[in-house]
């Protein structure tokens, strides 16, 4: 759907491991050149081009600075289907955990404050799992950058799906635990 080359907009090779400080530096440098503020006195055609170029630059920076959206973007560019995820499908290794979590959520919603403790614990466990996946993703990013292999992208896609599922759980628990 979106055919802009976000890596190119920031003068980068298509690599998944990025130094965020370097990315920010590039973004600021390009912004100084391309921002519409710099083109007010220029002919309309140049103004339009600057508007277009800086919107691509901003979109690129937004997508690339976050490792997850960066990986999703690259997967999409490489022809992987990462559209609407079946995030309701529970990864099998999590079945038991999720079942207990849903019980605790249900209890809390029905006013059972004792469930708060077990939810807190579940929250920490799931947050730790999310962090573990982030570590796993970093390793996969490095692997892809070295070999540029679709098999690695396939693994990344799997990790992203698990991550999305867990992130939704964490959000749900946080929403429930937040002071009303």
């Amino acid at each position, binding site marked *: 759907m979106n055919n802009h080359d976000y890596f190119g907009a920031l003068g980068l090779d298509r690599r998944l491991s990025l130094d965020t400080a370097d990315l920010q530096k590039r973004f600021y440098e390009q*912004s100084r050149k391309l921002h519409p*503020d710099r083109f*007010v*006195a220029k002919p309309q055609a140049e103004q339009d081009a600057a508007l277009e170029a800086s919107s691509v630059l*901003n979109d690129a920076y*937004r997508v690339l600075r976050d490792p997850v959206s960066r990986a999703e973007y690259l997967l999409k560019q490489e022809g992987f289907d990462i559209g609407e995820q079946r995030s309701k499908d529970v990864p099998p290794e999590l079945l038991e955990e999720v079942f207990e979590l849903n019980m605790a959520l249900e209890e809390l919603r029905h006013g059972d404050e004792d469930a708060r403790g077990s939810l807190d614990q579940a929250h920490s466990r799931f947050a730790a799992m999310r962090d573990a996946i982030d570590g796993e993703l970093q390793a996969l990013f490095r692997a892809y950058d070295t070999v540029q292999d679709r098999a690695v992208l396939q693994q990344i896609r799997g990790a992203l799906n698990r991550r999305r599922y867990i992130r939704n759980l964490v959000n749900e628990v946080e929403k429930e635990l937040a002071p009303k």
Partner: protein
Amino acid sequence: MSQMFDIDFSAHKQGRIVGIDLGTTNSLVAFMDLTGPKVIPGADGGNLVPSVVSYTREGVFLAGNPARDMLIDQPERTVYSVKRLMGKGAADVRHEVELFPFHITPDSDSVIRLQLGEKVLTPPEISAQVLGQLKRNAEVFLGEPVTRAVITVPAYFNDAQRQATRDAGRIAGLEVLRLVNEPTAASLAYGVDKRQNGVVAVYDFGGGTFDISILRLHDGIFEVLATNGDTHLGGDDIDNRLIRIGLEDIASEWGEDISKNGEAVQLLRRAVIRAKEELSFVPAVLIELDYHGKHYQREIHRELFENLIKDIIDRTLVPCRQCLADSGVSADQIDEVVMVGGSTRIPMVRRAVEALFRAKPHTELNPDEVVALGAAVQAGILSGDVDDKLLLDVTPLSLGIETMGGVVSKLIHRNSTIPASATENFTTAVDGQRNVLIHVVQGERELVKDCRSLARFDLKDIDPLPAGAARIEVKFLIDANGILSVSARDARSGKEQSVEVKPSYGLTDDQVEAMILESIEKAEADFNERQVREARVEADAILAATDKAKANDAWLDLDDAARQSIDTAVNHLLLVYHSDDHNLILAKIDELNQATMTLAEKMMNTAVSSALKGTKI
């Protein structure tokens, strides 16, 4: 300035770009001097132009201080805080009408129309009068025409509110080169000679709106990380609390409900504002009102005042927390907090901000002026005079389109750096379908009914094809002003697809064009009228002088022909005196001037000789 120094101002051939803070309560205009941003004072020497507009019985618009005086004398012809109505529909503001003396006409719908005497005006037209006053102030001060401006808006203004502000500028004869968010502008003014790097929070609590922005400053780049706010929360709300107390007291003490009495309410409003402002510096104040021989007074202690407004201040903290969360920085990573807007003078506000951000807020810049100063810096950036700074702002609200079942599909998320864009593909649902209607909304909620409708875009003249075969690529682009534009093309042929915009609120382009034309015509009519009046005043003077001269001895010294030509010239002038052509009047004045030349010389000689005689005695 330009007369004092030998500087090449050729870069300013198009004239300077001014920076304007179009506020709820007060407005200011500033420009970039060689030494930095400066506020331009009005004719009365004051920097603040009250955002009040009055339409006099004589059919003249007043804006600023003269209009503010009319609030008491002619409340039904005068309006203030109109910024609250910008980009709103009649249904949005029904609850406002209770305490604001807005005379909203019954035919108001998606555009509000206000009655000012016999005139009916939209909020942008009224704001244009304030902008016009600022424009004139700047022109007098700078000694050159001013046609281009940067205007500030609350960061949390939606698309319609931004468009309405830009329309107001256009109606006032200003090309609005950029709309800048107020807190961001404040950070620019603040960053001019202060911090170069770090994370700054700007807490902007003005007369009618509240904004919070968190920025990263990095070697001249001002990158907004997140923004939040409430476009219906400000000092006005605090005033209204105090007015309510006054009205209740008066109802029980005088046995009289004065809430429908515009003059009395305005007097009370003025009294509570004075009291509120003093309370920032003293522990207790008197609210006093004298009205038609009746007296009301009540002492207000700061403690009572703080109890009264606590929930209003708490309401500002909710957006602050959300903004922190969205910016990805924690409270202790905030290096500085900058306070903007008159309401930040209230000690309780300062305490609340300090507690939340765990940093002592900066108050050394005048909170009334800092936004206008920042707008002038942005004007300098646009003109190229300031080349080491750049603002990277964000869109405050998510942009989405309506999908099946009234659900919003988000295309551009809030806090995305602008310009920002999104592309979506659309197709047809029925064989031979020629149109596709796209409903665009702004807001964070999941359902269309909970978001703000922006506009409906009608993709027209689609090639008739079987259902689902058409492929139309629609591009949504939010520009650096935070304003949306939509373009579409047929993805198969690549040809541009025509799009018709139906804004949900606010004026269409045609309506704005008509208003601009009317204001130009009106300006020409006003200008003509003034020239004719000035010519008649001149004619009065020379006719009176000629009459007087006829009693002088010098008149008798003239030959018949000279006397004849003077009488003829007087008659010629009297004949054209009531014409609407000032040039004609001026020509006949000139004729009379020529005819009386010899007479004047003779009179001068007589006067001199009698004066000489006088000295001898």
